[in-house]
């Protein structure tokens, strides 16, 4: 991601322009992720009204638990599961077409949705399913907003790191901080822990 939005990270030569671009990017990323969460919550509310009538059906807890365990296994390559996306990556050309501010907004909005880049972490789908199952638009906005905010705020330490160390984006991008395989393992363990907790709660309730 930092590789694609490298222009934004490297805007530190002009501090005000960088600050404005990074802020617009963060707001757009947080906003679109919250919107996604709200929509999933509304979808859950509609389904709840039509089908079940309860806020968090027992079968739903089973579904989430099993989904979390299965996607954790899929993250480390032990199982194949579908990972629906809209695009494989956001185009790098937006910088040239729209300039720093409009491009920062566009990248933020696209990346906040999550499905505009490939998704190597099954936790994303589990979180979406969790939002639908909760059926609460406010909760959905808060949960997916957390995802969007953390994703966007990485831009600040990344920019600062580049500014202090005077390294190129590609050098920074190949640093251990951006090791995909390591991130997948950490997420897989957290996801399987979450799935086990949800499943155990469903079994014992």
């Amino acid at each position: 991601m930092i590789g694609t939005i490298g222009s934004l990270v490297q805007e530190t030569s002009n501090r005000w322009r960088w600050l404005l671009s990074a802020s617009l990017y963060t707001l757009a990323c947080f906003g679109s992720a919250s919107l996604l969460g709200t929509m999933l919550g509304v979808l859950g509310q509609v389904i709840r009204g039509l089908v079940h009538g309860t806020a968090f059906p027992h079968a739903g807890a089973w579904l989430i638990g099993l989904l979390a365990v299965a996607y954790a296994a899929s993250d480390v390559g032990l199982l194949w599961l579908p990972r629906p996306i809209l695009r494989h990556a956001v185009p790098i050309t937006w910088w040239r077409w729209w300039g720093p501010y409009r491009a920062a907004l566009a990248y933020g909005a696209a990346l906040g949705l999550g499905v505009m880049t490939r998704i190597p972490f099954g936790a994303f789908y589990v979180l979406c399913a969790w939002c639908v199952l909760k059926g609460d638009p406010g909760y959905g906005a808060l949960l997916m907003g957390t995802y969007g905010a953390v994703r966007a705020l990485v831009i600040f330490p990344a920019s600062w790191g580049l500014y202090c160390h005077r390294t190129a984006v590609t050098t920074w991008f190949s640093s251990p901080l951006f090791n995909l395989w390591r991130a997948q393992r950490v997420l897989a363990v957290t996801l399987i822990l979450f799935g086990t907790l949800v499943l155990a709660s469903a079994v014992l309730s």
Partner: protein
Amino acid sequence: MISLRQRLQCLPLLYGGIAAGLMLTMITRVNRGAELAMAMLMVGMPFLLAALTGLGKTTTA
């Protein structure tokens, strides 16, 4: 591309995650005082997962 060896090396990690989840559940069943901590964990866990996913997604283009 993840090799078969790398995939199999992750099995202990996954089993560790399952064991930790079961252990936490057992603790709350045995110790009633831990119920509040478990409730807090269940509330906070999705947010931790969301934050880690957001952080992890930084590695993708």
